[in-house]
């Protein structure tokens, strides 16, 4: 499940009361979104499908086990939201679409056809076959009919959540699928002509040995994937996994073992021709996820569905996470919005370092230093010194006009990012975080103008 445009605020099993969010709380997205830049309209779209059969214990993404059969109302609502969002693409052809979840493959083929039709109707998908249209699939739920429906609608890439091929470890994760289903789903995708296929794997599962992990990697490579995502198991707050660990059900993987697995992943996949292009993502040359690169390169993308998060010209927003809130139609068909962050030079620069340094390509050092210089006196020097310090520790490679993490730097990416981000702060006077940027009011009439 490589692609997540959602945050973990809402889960089926937390008891804590959630804030009531709705269209009446503050301005809606229509009035917040900056007008699109005619030279650079949003060319990417994320769609979130929140349904799951069962909630896996490590997952902190928004999903619900739907017992009320709300899939059809959800699709109704999604279709109207896609229509409302469409003007921000300015009619330009979309280059990437990513449907994640939840379990998008849980939607029935008829409902899928409605979603795909709406996409075709409101957005220009004429170039998507040359671009990238990914759907996340649970190997258990893949059927020939579903694959055919997707392929027909332009989907050219699927991402399968395999996680592990070891039944014991799948059980620890409370992941309910039979590992035999992975090759089956893999073949079904190929049968309908979807050749770009990615696998998600998880390592550092409690009880997993380096040998177990190696076996999972080998099994994955046997499928000859173009793309693999390998995630160290993260104990996110408010997940069942974390609660079970806190109860003492199991011990977490020791740090040394986790580091060894991280290094072994790189060595093994690189040996098989899949190089790391992001901390947890590996691909054959040219097979990188273009949609995810858009996130990491701070490009613009639109977002639909509950808990989906979007980014346009420095502004970030997130849709209300609860399905019930989402189903209440917001202004002009938009979803109710929470967590709006207006463009702000310092924040945007920190984000650029935060996501950019996680990429093999790193960041353009001259451009980053130039932005730092504009922030505050001395920030450029401090940033350069901090980068030199990290380079001195062998964690950062400053050659060829870019800052790139070294292989050992990838293990400590967060420490490096923290060191650089701190350099931007050191000169700040006055209490930190006391000033929140104003939320701009934009383009209130924009869709109307077009109409």
């Amino acid at each position, binding site marked *: 499940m490589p692609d997540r445009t959602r945050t973990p605020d809402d889960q089926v099993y937390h008891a804590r009361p959630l804030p009531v969010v709705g269209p009446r709380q503050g301005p809606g997205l229509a009035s917040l979104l900056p007008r699109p830049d005619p030279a650079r309209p949003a060319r990417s779209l994320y769609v979130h499908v929140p349904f799951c059969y069962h909630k896996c214990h490590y997952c902190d993404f928004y999903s619900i086990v739907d017992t009320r059969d709300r899939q059809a109302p959800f699709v109704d609502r999604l279709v109207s939201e896609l229509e409302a969002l469409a003007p921000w693409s300015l009619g330009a052809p979309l280059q990437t679409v990513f449907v994640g979840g939840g379990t998008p493959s849980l939607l029935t083929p008829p409902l899928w056809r409605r979603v795909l039709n709406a996409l075709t109707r409101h957005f220009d998908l004429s170039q998507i076959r040359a671009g990238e249209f990914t759907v996340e699939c649970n190997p258990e739920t893949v059927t020939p009919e579903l694959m055919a429906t997707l392929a027909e609608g332009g989907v050219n890439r699927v991402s399968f959540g395999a996680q592990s091929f070891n039944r014991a470890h799948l059980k620890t994760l409370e992941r309910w699928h039979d590992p035999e289903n992975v090759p089956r789903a893999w073949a079904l995708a190929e049968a309908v002509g979807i050749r770009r296929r990615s696998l998600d794997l998880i390592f550092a599962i409690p009880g997993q040995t380096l040998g177990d992990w190696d076996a999972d990697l080998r099994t994955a490579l046997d499928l000859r994937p173009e793309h693999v995502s390998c995630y160290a198991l993260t104990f996110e707050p408010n997940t069942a996994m974390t609660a079970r660990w806190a109860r003492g059900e199991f011990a977490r993987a020791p740090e040394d073992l986790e580091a060894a697995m991280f290094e072994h992943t790189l060595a093994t996949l690189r040996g098989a021709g899949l190089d790391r292009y992001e901390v947890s993502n590996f691909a054959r040359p040219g097979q990188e996820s273009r949609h995810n690169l858009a996130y990491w390169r701070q490009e613009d993308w639109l977002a639909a569905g509950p808990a989906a998060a979007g980014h346009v010209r420095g502004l970030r927003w*997130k849709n209300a996470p609860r399905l019930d809130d989402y189903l209440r139609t917001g202004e002009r068909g938009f979803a109710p919005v929470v967590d709006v962050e207006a463009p702000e030079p310092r924040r945007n620069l920190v984000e650029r370092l935060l996501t950019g340094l996680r990429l093999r390509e790193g960041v353009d050092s001259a451009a980053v230093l130039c932005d730092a210089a504009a922030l505050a006196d001395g920030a450029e020097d401090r940033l350069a010194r901090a980068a030199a310090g990290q380079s001195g520790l062998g964690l950062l490679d400053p050659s060829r006009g870019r800052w790139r993490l070294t292989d050992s730097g990838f293990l400590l990416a967060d420490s490096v990012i923290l060191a650089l981000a701190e350099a931007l702060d050191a000169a700040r006077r006055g209490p930190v975080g006391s000033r929140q940027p104003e939320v701009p009011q934009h383009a209130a009439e924009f869709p109307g103008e077009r109409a």
Partner: protein
Amino acid sequence: MPDQTPHVRNFSIIAHIDHGKSTLADRLLQATNAVSAREAREQILDSMDLERERGITIKASAVTVMHRHRPGSAADDFETEYEDAADESGHHTTRKGESPDEHGDLYMLNFIDTPGHVDFNYEVSRALKACEGAILVVDATQGVQAQTLVNAYLAINENLVIVPVINKIDLPSARPDDVAMEIEQTLGFPAEDCLLVSAKTGQGIRELLASICEKFPPPRPPVVTQLRGLIFDAVYDDYRGVIIYIRVFDGALKVGDKIRMMGTGRTFQVTDIGKMTPKPVRVPGVGPGETAYVCAAIRSLKDVRVGDTVTLDSDPAIEALTGYQPPRQMVFCDFYPATSEEGGGPGFEELRDAVEKLSLNDSSFTFLPVHSEALGFGFRCGFLGLLHMDIIQERLEREGGVEVVQTAPTVSYHVLCRGQGPFASTGGQALKPVEPSSPFYRDVPPASTLLEVHNPAELPDGSHIIEIREPMCTLEIMCPKDKIGDIMKLCLDRRGHYKSQSFVSETRDLLKFEIPLAEIIYDFFDKMKGLTSGYGTMDYEVVSYKPDDLVKLDILVNAEPVEALAVITHRHKAEQRGRGLIARLKEQIPRHQFEIPLQAAIGAKVIARETIKSVRKNVLAKCYGGDVSRKRKLLEKQKEGKKRMKSVGSVTIPQEAFMAVLDTGE
């Protein structure tokens, strides 16, 4: 006002902490109608928030109330009950002292509240100097405690008449008879003389009021005609400047008089005289035996010396009253701004403002600017004791709005050096000799100098040092008999010398030790409390300075000595101390991107070492479109956390680590 001149009684209430002193004071105020139940907030005399929160009194205040007493009677009436419906109706206005129907003589009761903690003995003794009597309050469930004795001795030394009161007799676990026997056993007051009181229910208050009038002597008659008033307290008020509290012994003072401070020679024009009832009430003047507050456009507490004598500029007295020794700061620590940048920054300026402002209303702490390699610019502050230090730190953060990094407390050492100096620390800082007038200036041979050192970083080069002397205390611990062995062991482990043991009651004894102050300022109190399940109490007084085999223990982080972590310790305990210290540091200092060696050393000799392993892996697995905001907020939080840390070379050390030195590693 009534027809007669009132009889005057000046007295204090003294007690061990939490024995109900402030509640009793409030009850007396209510009983004399000075305060109605409705306006009586709990514990009126404690005015600072912090005092209220900690349940302790920091600043002494004086309150004056009027009361009717028929001489010879054993219990006084008072009208008001505590939950007065009369107040609700708005009709209840008759004040006791003004009632025309009253019988008996009019008494002016001046009572002076005292702090209850060991650190503030100095303030207790200066309050007692203004009194003729003292109410000694003892908790009926807890009995005589260490501070009960210390405070009682202070009062006895001032020749005060003492009325022992057993408080909290309403509690089911009260054992007033036993406690009365303890008082007789330890202080020699006959058990039957103890008054039984419940400040909570009001029981025994009538008898106590009668005793105050009957047993406490009137003020002595004037011996000279000129004004002589003892300054027993001074507080700073944002609007009126310094307000001094005086006890007039001779002569009289009125508004408009020009006063002269006999010690400093400074003069001020009196603008306001009044009494706290406990609301401030202006009076035209005060005469012999009375207490009052005086405003005289005094700008700063530095202009006033508590203990000084006030006289009239136009007709000055010849001889001043006997005052007090100035307070001695025994415990020292450094405060640095938590947010300061190198070379001093906004954090330092804010800290300086806060420290200066605080010193306006607490003249008993001292401060000097210091600079530390590790922590930048800050202040070395001196305190009366550990609690005083805690209070100052909290007030700096709360009232001054600055976050501070506090170093471990140390005591004031005396270092005997060869030659006449001048001497400097190894860091080049000039060192101050001990004043020859100090009671601790003794045994200084010719061609040598006794230096005062408040911090391990100030020690001069070892080749100059003849010996290091440290402050020694007499320590009194009152503890259950079955814990005596544990307490003995604790004190002997801390280089204490056993002095004596005396009987308090069937269950408790009083132990006396001589012990270095440095050994009890860390965690001694907590350990003692733990060993005695909370039943033990202690008090201490610094009595002398003694040489011992003391060494400076350096702590090196990543091969760099961190002055703020250095300690002075006994050579025999250095290794244990060093091990404990770096073990604590290992827990406190977060792992870095590289290995960090930690070492404890005496001079060039390393006596303990540890290594903080480097971080192996620190990278988020996922950072997709919807994760960016959350991950960035996480990053901001980490950065905030690091701001509370200090950099030593390339290592960041959290504030808590500087307190790790407190733990003696036992």
